[in-house]
């Protein structure tokens, strides 16, 4: 029996310290998932509380055929989507969005990135870029990306947690990855030499600053909403 299953069974018998251990084990994951979906810190805090409370109240119904974590993620995703619907009632929020035509995933920009592009930015700048970029994806896409690529769930576990088919998860994951890549490209692209802002034309420090300025021109990353963050998808 897995360690996780032993804790679940103890919690089912009324051992609250076992349940508390499950909270400790997964609270950070649930918080990350919730904040990725809701894009709001307070909502994410509420989702953590509500998801664990719901899991606690329904523990006797948990069948033990799936992993507790997958079951918990499904509860948390549903809570987070409910928050998002309440916050943005004018927009349809669903995991069952239509898959657009093939063209929407065809990369627009093929330019290569600088080596170690993330090192061009401070940690705070990078976090802002990543956060704004992923916000621009439709919720159904970013949820699949977060579960698969950030939290490391398998395709099958992601499908189970989101009640989607495996092909639907694969299709959304491909589009999410390609759209994020396309959007990050404007910050991370290799600058051509010889145009005054390129690789090898200036010292490292100057290049870094100039590259940042270039990226700000393109996306205005600091503090201002950008076209990267707006809209529901890649047109």
């Amino acid at each position: 029996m897995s360690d996780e299953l032993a804790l679940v069974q103890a919690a089912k018998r009324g051992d609250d310290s076992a349940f508390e251990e499950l909270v400790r084990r997964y609270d950070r994951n649930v918080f990350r998932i919730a904040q990725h979906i809701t894009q709001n810190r307070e909502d994410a805090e509420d989702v953590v509380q509500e998801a664990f409370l719901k899991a606690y109240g329904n523990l006797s119904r948990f069948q033990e055929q799936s992993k507790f974590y997958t079951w918990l993620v499904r509860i948390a995703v549903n809570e987070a989507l409910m928050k998002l619907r309440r916050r943005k009632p004018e927009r349809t929020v669903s995991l069952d969005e239509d898959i657009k035509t093939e063209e929407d995933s065809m990369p627009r920009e093929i330019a290569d990135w600088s080596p170690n592009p993330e090192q061009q930015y401070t940690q705070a700048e990078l976090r802002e870029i990543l956060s704004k970029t992923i916000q621009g994806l439709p919720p159904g896409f970013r949820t699949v990306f977060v579960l698969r690529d950030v939290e490391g769930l398998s395709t099958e576990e992601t499908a189970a947690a989101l009640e989607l088919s495996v092909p639907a998860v694969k299709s959304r994951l491909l589009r999410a990855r390609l759209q994020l890549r396309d959007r990050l490209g404007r910050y991370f692209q290799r600058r051509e030499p010889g145009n005054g802002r390129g690789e090898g034309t200036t010292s490292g420090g100057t290049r870094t600053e100039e590259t940042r300025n270039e990226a700000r021109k393109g996306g205005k990353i600091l503090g201002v909403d950008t076209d990267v963050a707006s809209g529901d998808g890649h047109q």
Partner: protein
Amino acid sequence: MKCSEFLNELTSYLDGVLDEKTKAELENHLSWCHNCYVVCDTTKKTIEIYRDSQLYELPEDLRSRLRSAIMTKCQQQKKRGPQSV
């Protein structure tokens, strides 16, 4: 293999779940198609950057507050008896 076929297999390739034959065809395509090579490489970097980003980490003080609120509410719920949540 055409570029569009390559794109359809990209996710499986990056996840390492392709069969040997398709993987070989894809790698052959990558060996001569620079655009697909760049897309593959930068998509891989995209995943790595997000995976390593530590976006939305839960600070320890907030974490303890949340855990304590959760456990208090669980105990209140237990006292009220079983119910449909």
